[in-house]
């Protein structure tokens, strides 16, 4: 966990809109160690998605630098699990999960093995020929996770992958994610607005301020791994940590609300 995987130096993002410049992300400096399950929590509009999209190569930073340790030859640097429905409706579950490997022209035999493994790990083997519209929301998000893991990236980027799910499904998928992650212990950058989720999954949690987005606090999560979601949540230390993070976050949520009301008025 010692070598730094992702290194941000004064990374910022300003969008130019019709109403003028909009600062999504104030200059941010941050090191994320290899193998760290890094959580970002913040109120909506705090620039956390922007940060992730910059890492995913979908946005370019306005200033500052982003350094990511080069992956071994032939492996992709990162793969993203998107928020909401991102599976191609015109591909089967298998084709969706195989997407990254196919784009990299991996041999079909390898694709079959790797994708088969992750579909099995996510309980989707029976559905490999189904189309996304035939699956429930929870199953679709599982395919999305399988797609990212099957691509075997150095870094996993997850943008509120479970936010659209009901509570029971969420807990199941968190368990599953932890189990699959234990196999490889990749570096993860995971965005959520749920403090519970952050404490359940993460090694380290960054709390962000409302717009403009800025890192307010970084908290280490002391719980050992492997973790079981429900057992973890029963611990008094868990409740204390959630409570203290809420303390940091509450001010931000209220400030965000005040800002919204200010602009609305």
């Amino acid at each position, binding site marked *: 966990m010692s070598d730094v995987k992702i290194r941000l130096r004064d990374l910022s993002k300003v969008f130019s809109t019709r109403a003028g410049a909009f600062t999504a992300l104030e200059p941010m400096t941050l090191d994320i160690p290899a193998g760290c399950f890094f959580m970002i929590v913040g109120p909506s509009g705090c620039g956390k998605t922007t940060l992730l999209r910059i890492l995913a190569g979908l946005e370019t930073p306005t200033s500052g630098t982003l350094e990511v340790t080069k992956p071994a030859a032939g492996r992709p640097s990162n793969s*993203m699990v998107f928020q909401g429905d991102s599976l191609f409706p015109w591909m089967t579950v298998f084709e969706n999960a195989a997407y990254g490997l196919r784009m990299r022209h991996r041999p079909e035999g390898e694709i079959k093995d790797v994708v088969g493994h992750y579909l099995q790990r996510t309980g989707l083997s029976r559905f490999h020929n189904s189309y*996304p519209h035939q699956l429930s929301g929870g199953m679709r998000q599982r395919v999305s996770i399988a797609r990212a893991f099957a691509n075997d990236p150095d870094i996993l980027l997850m943008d509120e992958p479970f936010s659209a799910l009901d509570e029971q499904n969420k807990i199941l998928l968190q368990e599953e994610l932890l189990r699959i992650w234990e196999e490889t212990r990749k570096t993860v950058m995971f965005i959520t607005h749920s403090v519970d989720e952050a404490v359940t999954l993460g090694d380290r949690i960054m709390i962000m301020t409302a717009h403009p987005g800025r890192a307010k606090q970084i908290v280490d999560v002391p719980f050992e791994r492997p973790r079981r979601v429900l057992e973890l949540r029963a611990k008094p230390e868990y409740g204390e940590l959630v409570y203290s993070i809420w303390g940091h976050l509450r001010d931000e949520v209220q400030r965000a609300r005040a800002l919204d009301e200010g602009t609305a008025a």
Partner: protein
Amino acid sequence: MKKSGTFGLSQDTVERLLNFASPVILLLIWELCARFGVIDVRFFPAPSKIFTQFMVMVENGQLWKHFWASMQRLFWGFLFGGVPALALGVAMGLSRPLRMLVEPLVSATYPVPKSAILPLVLLIFGLGESSKIVMVGIGIFFPIVINAMAGVLEIQKIYFDVSKNFGASRWQVFRTVALPGAMPLILTGVKLGIGMGLVLISIAEMVGAKSGLGFMMWNAWEILSVETMYVGLIVIAVLGIIFSQIVTEIERMIVPWRNAR
């Protein structure tokens, strides 16, 4: 559906019979009116007469000859008009600069009635096969180019984000996102284009050809063989129905996810 209705037949069967009955009844009335002189058989020959003429033309090979001539022109026209239209339309959907460049040309030429440019096409391409193929090509080009572009523009941005994040090349984006994503609208364009192609092949063959279903009908007018005219009309109508069914079948095969949306 199991509910029994009239004469103890199931609702489904009754509906199917009714569906089948209306054209049969119409033909029957037509036949009777023609036989008893209620309608002028110089314009509306009895269906039995038309059918007899149909059989005669099948036997002497005339119908097949004209049918085959039209089919070949339609095929090459669909190919030479449809494939470039597909590529251009998808590319226009993907590339904003290309769209800005080409869209004004498309919207300026689209409203021109295609039949009105037949004289020009005859002038440029002569009376040979190429002028007919060009007419069909022009007919199918516009609906496909417009629908392909609209189809790509309708694809949600997140799918392009996914393909970019997973390292897809431009060609891979075209093949795995743009083309399948736009396919439902493209196939709608194909259907419209086929209809347009049938219209234009008829017109083009009437004026500038010595073979084909259009020529056959025009020639029938000149020699006052009304029955032949009706044979031509029916063959073209049936062609339209068959082509449309084929596209619907293709749609079912290559867009199995369509009913999801």
